[in-house]
């Protein structure tokens, strides 16, 4: 299978002498569903930011679908759901407005949304179970519903690569299950390459094909079943915050 994301010998530091990631080699094939786990500060978010070209590595190279990530030419095919604390506005904005903003790269910068784009937005809203709340203010919704709106925004872009950073943080169990069903369907029907960053994978454990543990570098990369049993213990050094 062609490679969607490739990191080769990647190192990254925010300050000299304090590396966040060292010597990372990772190749994610198109259509894979990869879970990225690790402790807080271990470099998970940095890894996906590098993969998306949002940050440049201090050493090594990062490629997206064969092109250097920071110069990737088909960005409209990328979907990203950042940690909830990093997204959103305090102003009045409806679910439909949030999801519509996910069609911007496809529909063009100028003018209103076309009919086809509006239909895709409606479908994405329905997919996450928010059809009845499409015109509700985001601020009036629960944390889980708000997160589902941002996930619908990423879906509306019809991505080839979907990156979700802690999508279930602070989300109720019902929303977690709805998200898992949705991701499973997206993966099965459209073969979307997915990087799912989280502390825990209870909701999506049936979909995850490959687990990557990050702690300053990649300390495990393989099928979840191959994870040494000691590492399932939250007190283990690789799992601990």
């Amino acid at each position, binding site marked *: 299978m062609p490679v969607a994301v490739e990191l080769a010998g990647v190192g990254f530091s925010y300050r000299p002498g304090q590396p966040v990631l060292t010597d990372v080699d990772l190749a994610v094939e198109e259509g894979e569903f990869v879970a990225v786990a690790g402790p807080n500060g271990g470099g998970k978010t940095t890894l996906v930011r590098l993969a998306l070209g949002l940050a440049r590595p201090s050493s090594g190279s990062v490629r997206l679908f064969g092109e250097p990530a920071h110069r990737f030419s088909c960005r409209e095919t990328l979907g990203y759901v950042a940690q909830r604390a990093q997204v959103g506005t305090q102003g009045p904005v409806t679910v439909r407005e949030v999801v519509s903003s996910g069609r911007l790269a496809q529909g063009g*910068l100028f003018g209103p949304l076309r009919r086809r784009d509006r239909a895709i937005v409606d479908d994405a809203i329905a997919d996450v179970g928010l059809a009845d709340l499409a015109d509700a203010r985001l601020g009036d919704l629960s944390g889980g519903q708000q997160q589902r709106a941002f996930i619908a925004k990423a879906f509306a872009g019809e991505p080839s690569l979907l990156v979700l950073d802690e999508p279930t943080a602070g989300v109720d169990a019902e929303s977690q299950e709805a998200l898992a069903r949705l991701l499973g369907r997206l993966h099965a029907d459209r073969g979307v390459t997915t990087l799912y960053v989280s502390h825990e994978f209870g909701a999506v454990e049936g979909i995850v094909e490959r687990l990557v543990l990050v702690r300053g570098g990649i300390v495990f990369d393989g099928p979840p079943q191959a994870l040494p049993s000691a590492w399932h213990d939250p007190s283990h050094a690789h799992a601990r915050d």
Partner: protein
Amino acid sequence: MLETEFMRLAFATGAVVGLLAPAVGFFLVQRNMSLVGDGVGHTAFAGVAAGYLLGVSPVLTALVAAVAGAVGIEWLRSRHRAAGDQALALLFYTGIAAGVVLASSAGALDVDLFSFLFGSILTVTRGDLVLVVVLGVTGLALIGLLYRALAAVVIDEEGAKVAGVPVAALNVLVAGLAGVTIGLSMQIVGILLIAALMVLPVIAAGRVAWSMSSSVLLAMGIGLASVFAGLTVSYYADLPPGGAIVLLAASAFLVTSALAAVRARA
């Protein structure tokens, strides 16, 4: 009131300013940059003083200084050369100090300069009106055309970057429009108060708006109403227009807050 030419000019200029200032201010407020207008206003003050010193139109030099200042703040912020409030402080104090030094050198620390600081309905000329209409309508058209893109950056800047939206260029555009708005509005509202017309209608609209687009349109309506009512009060009560306009915009916040409270109880 409208039989006098200076009032017709003030109303025509005010119509453009009343719509443009909240439209641009909306995108500053939503990105927690409400005070940028204040910093840029102080740079515009240095531009006015430079105009007096150089013997050219203070409106033109203020426009240039305001746009340069606004784009400078965005550059410092986006390149992480300074935190947002530090970038603002740099511009704020440098602008006011340069303005005082330049105005003093030009021997212009007088009543004319005060009319730029607090606004004056007597100072708008036909040439100023043409400039305001051309630049103001261009600014409003740009916001209309790029509304979805500007909104996408407000909603999720990082997600927009990932999807290939030209976020940096759009942020510079908003900064440039903020500079133009301040340069165009200073005669009516005054350099020291123009930032309020960019921010207060947006905050007032946010109390009762049901969506982002309704918030922008309501803010523009409140801005326009505040300018027209403020100019009228200014004419009949012989008050500086800037103060009257801003006080009316502030009262709009009280009205919409009361409406929101009533709605919450219903």
